[in-house]
């Protein structure tokens, strides 16, 4: 950036940054948005923690879900502030002041971008205590903060820059907010696709080139699945490329053509002077090629079939020779209680069994006996048993988490694996566990309530402090506007 200093004073970008920072934070806009962020994060954290106590979501999943939400909401804030940065000035007729000064337009835009970016560090700082308490002693909150800082910062630069670009070419905030909101929603769409669409080649590719989806995927793999960075680094390419591309277009291409009125002069001039057709084509080709390149390794990885497991060859046994027993019959519990029990499968035949599959079934006795999805109720829905020798038994530990009140029965079945695609087998059922679950509510799940309440309160106190300090700086007497 040329013209870094104008005369003997401070650099232009620094002056603009400080002015914008004061307007955003002391003027209250950023503080209000961050306050709303703390409320949203508090509610999400509370819900996640409450759900965790009911269904035992592991700590790392809770941390991941909360971090993902924190980043998504913070990006929205950055987008909104970016969207207002130039079109808002046009609307308030204050942009002309700046355009009439001999300042570098690049530095002006850069200073504004820096200021519009500042809500992200604040949001991250607010998220840390929530992540810490949700981790429940698991050290997952440390990598969550590290990876969250990396991905969130990259995405915050990208989204704030996108907001500013939209604002650059909008005359009114109405237009820039509308377009920015559309872009934000578009970023969320791939995550809403049906599971199969997300899993296919095209779905995977779509997620990988979508910076928002790629960020979520990367964080999920790092925090939930404990995978190594080297396996999934390519999922960071889309956010990083977007951030770099946005910075490049905003600061290098667009900023020097900053005009009083957007549209006609703005876009045409930028394209005419800086973005020749050939360059446009080359850039589009390069971006597509890059996205394909970094997508390829992941696709290979996604398409690679799992290595076939070696199964012991065994002869078939009749169902009558199998037996499954449960050590619990009746339990009276309350919601959030855990019911551990053990099953014992015995092969009473005189020969080795086929491999066996044990599955849990739960039925709600209210009404007509609705089935319940055991996935919500238990960390183990099925368990696998290698072939059992004649007269051998196998015991398995199970756990049911009572997540709803009511009357339920749970029972187990053991199913010999069919010998081939044209054969079937007969499952054997156990006796049932009759569960009577009483309602129960916990006000402070995982101990998050103090944070949920204290964070917005601290922010309100900060707002009051800043307001009072500002009141002391200014003269509040005298005439009012007429």
């Amino acid at each position: 950036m040329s013209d870094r200093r104008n005369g003997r004073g401070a650099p232009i970008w620094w002056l603009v940054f400080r002015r914008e920072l004061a307007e955003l934070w002391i003027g209250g806009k950023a503080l209000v948005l961050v306050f709303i962020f703390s409320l949203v994060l508090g509610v999400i954290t509370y819900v996640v923690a409450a759900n965790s106590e009911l269904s035992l979501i592991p700590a790392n999943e809770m941390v991941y879900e909360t971090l993902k939400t924190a980043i998504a909401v913070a990006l929205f804030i950055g987008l909104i502030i970016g969207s207002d940065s130039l079109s808002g000035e046009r609307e308030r007729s204050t942009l002309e002041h700046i355009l009439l000064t001999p300042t570098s337009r690049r530095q002006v835009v850069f200073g504004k971008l820096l200021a519009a970016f500042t809500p992200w560090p604040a949001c991250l700082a607010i998220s840390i205590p929530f992540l810490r308490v949700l981790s429940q002693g698991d050290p997952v909150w440390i990598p969550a903060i590290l990876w969250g800082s990396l991905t969130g910062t990259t995405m915050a630069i990208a989204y704030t820059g996108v907001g500013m670009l939209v604002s650059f070419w909008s005359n009114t905030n109405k237009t820039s907010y509308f377009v920015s909101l559309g872009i934000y929603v578009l970023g969320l769409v791939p995550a809403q696709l049906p599971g199969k669409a997300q899993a296919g080649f095209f779905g995977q590719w779509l997620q990988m080139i979508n910076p928002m989806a790629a960020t979520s995927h990367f964080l999920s793999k790092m925090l939930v699945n404990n995978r190594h960075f080297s396996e999934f680094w390519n999922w960071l390419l889309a956010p990083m490329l977007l951030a770099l591309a946005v910075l490049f277009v905003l600061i290098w291409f667009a900023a020097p053509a900053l005009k009083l009125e957007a549209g006609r002069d703005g876009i045409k001039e930028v394209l005419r002077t800086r973005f020749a057709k050939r360059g446009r084509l080359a850039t589009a080709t390069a971006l597509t090629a890059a996205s394909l390149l970094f997508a390829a390794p992941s696709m290979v990885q996604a398409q690679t079939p799992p290595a076939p497991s070696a199964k012991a060859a065994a002869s078939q046994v009749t169902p009558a020779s199998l037996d499954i027993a449960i050590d619990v019959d009746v339990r009276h519990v309350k919601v959030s209680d855990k019911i551990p029990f053990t099953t014992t499968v015995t092969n009473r035949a005189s020969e080795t069994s086929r491999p066996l599959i044990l599955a849990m079934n739960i039925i709600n006795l209210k009404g007509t006996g609705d089935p319940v999805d055991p996935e919500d109720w238990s960390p183990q829905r099925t368990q696998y048993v290698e072939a059992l020798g004649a007269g051998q038994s196998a015991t398995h530990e199970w756990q049911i988490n009572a997540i709803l009140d009511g009357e339920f029965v749970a029972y187990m079945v053991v199913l010999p694996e069919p010998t081939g695609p044209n054969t079937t087998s007969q499952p054997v059922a156990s006796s049932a566990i009759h569960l009577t679950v009483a309602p129960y509510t916990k006000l402070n799940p995982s101990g998050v309530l103090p944070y949920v309440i204290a964070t917005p309160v601290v922010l309100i106190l900060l707002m009051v402090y800043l307001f009072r300090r500002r009141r002391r700086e200014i003269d509040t007497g005298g005439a009012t506007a007429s």
Partner: protein
Amino acid sequence: MNRTPLELVPKKGDAPRAEEGAPILVAEDLRKLYGPREALKGLTFTLGPTRVLGFLGPNGAGKTTAIRILTTIMEPTSGRFTVDGVGSDQPDEIRRRIGVLPESLGFPKQITGIEFLTYFGQLYGRTAAEARAKGMGLLEEFGLQNRARSLIGSYSRGMRQRLGIARALVNDPAVVFLDEPTLGLDPRGQQELLAQIRQVAERRSAGVVLCTHHLSDVEGVCDDVVILSSGEVVATGTVAEVIGGTQRNGNVVRVHVPSESIAQAQRILEEVSGVLRVTATSGISGWLRVEMARSADGAPDDPADRNRLLDGLIRANIPILSFDSEGGRLQDVFLQLTAGGIK
């Protein structure tokens, strides 16, 4: 002689920034096309230091386009201009030498007047301390020193206009552009602001371009005038030259009397020698239009004839509320020159 923005404001009697008498703003054949429509058709004029130039024209005449070109907000399709010797191909250097009060000027409401001026002083390259001192000086000059630490949101319209002019002066400009500075002000506020504009030109040896619809403002404060109509310059020169050059109805005067005396006044005036016709101005109660005979060579009427008109009314004890010569005011010239160009 080009000046950096940090040179001190010249006091009265200091050497002028440009050569003595040399214009500090020169516009040469400026044209602007919006698609096929020509918004500005060859604007040419000059402005000297300490002069105030009234920039006039009906709505859509091209005033705003011209001001935006001269203040580097917009590029001309063709033509060029210089400010204090700096050509229009150096917009940053031009911006260092001009100060502007745009018509649709917004202010950040959550900062104080002194913070606003300090910020812009810094943008022009001053240190924070210098910019603050400069800002305080300007606030004092424009009578806002007591509201320096008040939020701009609490300023009245007049105060904001004065703050806007102060903002236009933070870089000690060679040329100041003021677009409708008196808009929305009460009569006293208008008078005070016009006096300050005059002082800006004289004390700072600056040229001032005053863009306004208030023709009385121009008559009161301007030395020169440019009138635009449909993008074309239809008159240029000193105010006296423009009025004199277009005065074609010097033999018509207008008299304003109380409505109840209008019939009596009409009779009396018709009897005065040299009066050809007296008619009541339609639509405006109490005004009479008096056409007087010209001399044989077409020269303007004898002032003594006008005195006889007044004498007749005074003798009849009819109060004279107003008396002027048609075509002798800038408004008449403006209406005459821009007829058809008014939108």
